[in-house]
């Protein structure tokens, strides 16, 4: 089978979704870990240093290109699959099978993904663009200038509407992961029940803990729990 045949088949397309999904899960671990530095109670010194490393070091910069590619593939392929899948039904049912056979969020991955895409656009505009392109206020740490990304977070999260939007997005992320985490591993072929049951439990844990940690960040910033 040629690469083209493989990646244009329905299973091949799902393999792309699964592998990029797992890659994005790994990214979330790095992201949540680094962001947790805001709770170091040091006025953002540790966080700004960490953010500086991610922006200045060549390794995370190369990984960043991979990250954008991963997001791009996951989003485009996701929408293409959704369109293909919708076409496969033809006439709609009068009575829907609904929650009798499956969880609502497993059937709503495209909707949850769209909410996350919307979030991603605002999120990049809020932090990535100023930090990488348009520039930020400097902060002096040990006589050296750093971008004050921490200060930018405090400013952005003064607005309760933005905080609410971030929290809602984290809930979307939780449900997207609740299905996506274990589904990705099934899609790439993990079928030993010993592993699938483990991955299911880990997946539920991950999809609660990580989005909860993310949601606590704007809330902490808004309510002044960081100092």
């Amino acid at each position: 089978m040629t690469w083209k045949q493989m990646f244009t088949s329905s299973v091949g397309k799902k393999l792309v979704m699964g592998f990029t999904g797992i890659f994005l899960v790994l990214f979330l671990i790095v992201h949540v870990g680094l962001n947790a530095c805001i709770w170091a109670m040091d006025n953002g010194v540790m966080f700004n240093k960490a953010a500086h490393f991610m922006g200045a070091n060549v390794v995370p910069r190369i990984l960043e290109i991979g990250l954008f590619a991963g997001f791009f593939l996951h989003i485009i392929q996701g929408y293409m699959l959704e369109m293909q899948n919708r076409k496969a039904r033809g006439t709609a049912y009068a009575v829907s099978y609904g929650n009798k056979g499956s969880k609502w969020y497993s059937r709503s991955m495209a909707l949850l993904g769209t909410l996350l895409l919307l979030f991603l656009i605002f999120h990049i505009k809020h932090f990535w663009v100023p930090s990488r392109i348009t520039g930020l206020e400097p902060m002096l740490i040990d006589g050296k200038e750093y971008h004050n990304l921490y200060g930018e977070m405090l400013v952005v999260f003064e607005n309760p509407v933005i905080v609410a939007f971030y929290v809602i997005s984290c809930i979307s992320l939780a449900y997207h992961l609740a299905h996506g985490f274990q589904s990705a591993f099934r899609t790439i072929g993990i079928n030993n029940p010993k592993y699938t049951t483990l991955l299911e439990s880990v997946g539920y844990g991950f999809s609660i803990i990580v989005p909860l940690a993310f949601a606590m960040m704007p809330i902490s910033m808004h309510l002044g729990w960081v100092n």
Partner: protein
Amino acid sequence: MEHTTINIKLKVWKQANTQSKGYFESYDVPGISTEMSFLEMFDVLNERLIAEGKEPIAFDHDCREGICGMCSMYINGKPHGPWEGTTTCQLHMRAFKDGDIIVVEPWRAAAFPVIKDLMVDRGAFDRIIQAGGYISVNTGNAVDGNALPIEKEKADNAFAAAACIGCGACVAACKNSSAMLFVSAKVSHLALLPQGAPERKQRVMNMIAQMDKEGFGACTNTGACEAACPKEISITNIARLNAEYLSASLTTA
């Protein structure tokens, strides 16, 4: 068990042929014994319609004991009706109460065009089987069953997958009208056994290619197929199919 009769109301999909537009027609069906099967209830209604000079409702059926895979009614939002692990012919009227309104639709999938009323063309499944759901044994006598050692666990899993009767309830239940549970059952059944080994890679690639050609959707692992399957085929087979496909596509030219 107490024998009772109930009066029900049916809302059935009527469609003259593949091209024409369908619609729901309501029927009052009084005096139905709760001991009747769902299809016998349709027989009673059809006998009456014929006696009244009206057109009976077309539906698929054959063995009426849950093994042929012909019956295919989507009843009150679930393929094969409310019971677990049964086909429409095994569903009995005691599953319903007096005065119930029962909505009956055909399988809905672009790959399963409606032939008439509740009958759909499931030829797509036949073509998927023709693409690779077989083993080639070109010569010789039947081999003694005990001559080929097979692990008990593998034999059991292969047998469980082989229980698939190809009714298409998985396609009907899936939000994507995906045929992955059917294809995965057929691929798993043969991939787990030594007899399936020679054509193992070609089989999975050809069956998936045919599945895509027929216009079925992709798998989202929602589990609706497994929940609707009258033979309780496990969704684990889909993960096995994915592994088979990944390995075959990476190791063939």
